[in-house]
């Protein structure tokens, strides 16, 4: 087992753990809007770490270029979807829980 596949499996494991933390957050958070925050961990840190680990594993060729393209499209489309969900919830009169400290 060489050093590059070791580092890439480290990245992929960390990504899987961060997805687990995001799922735990979706379960624990009190309302819709705060659940969206927890879910955004999954599609930023989780996707970034796993795809970066795969890019390291494949080296510089057309597969890793495609993986980079997938990462860019994920980073453009998921915030748009989260914004659409939050906006439709707000305009559908779902009141967020607010707390000041």
């Amino acid at each position, binding site marked *: 087992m060489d050093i590059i596949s070791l580092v890439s499996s480290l990245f992929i494991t960390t990504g899987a753990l961060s997805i687990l933390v*995001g799922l735990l957050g979706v379960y*624990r958070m009190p*309302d819709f809007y705060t659940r969206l*925050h927890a879910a955004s961990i999954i599609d930023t840190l989780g996707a970034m770490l796993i795809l970066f680990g795969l890019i390291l594993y494949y080296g510089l060729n057309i597969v890793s270029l495609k993986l980079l393209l997938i990462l860019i499209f994920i980073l*453009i489309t998921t915030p748009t979807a989260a914004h659409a969900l*939050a906006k439709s919830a707000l305009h559908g009169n779902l009141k*967020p829980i607010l*707390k000041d400290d």
Partner: protein
Amino acid sequence: MSNYDIFFHKISLIISLAFLWVMLSGHYTPLLLLLGILSVLVVASISSRMKLIILDQPILQLYFIRFIPYGFWLIFQIIKSNIDVCKRILNPKLPISPRLVTVRSSQLSNFAKVVYANSITLTPGTISIDLDDSNIEVHSLSKIGAEGLKTGDMDRKITSAEANPYV
């Protein structure tokens, strides 16, 4: 807008589409290359007939290069706020204090405004809920995230990237 500019817009669209096709295909036999050229030309002609080539804006395919240094800064911010939100989730007391704040967006073009709103949503802990011409309403998970946005660091970086004269 002169004929030369319209021509340049179309050529840049064709080049970026061809680049995307070569990147996604990975096959270089003559038949497949011919089919690729045909599909690129069909897509380019359809998008110019649909007036998707917007003439009063900068060329989008080259314009996004301005935001690449900002992208690296953004990735750093995403990792920082991810660690913060992960700590809050794993804390047994769940120390969150959700709030709605309004931040100003000083960008001029629609493209830069989209970049700003998407950057806010992309950083965990803040979601852009609603936006009009110069304000963005943000739902924030904690006081720290809301105050970080209020300092206007991200807003200033995008505005200066938008106005970058060197690219």
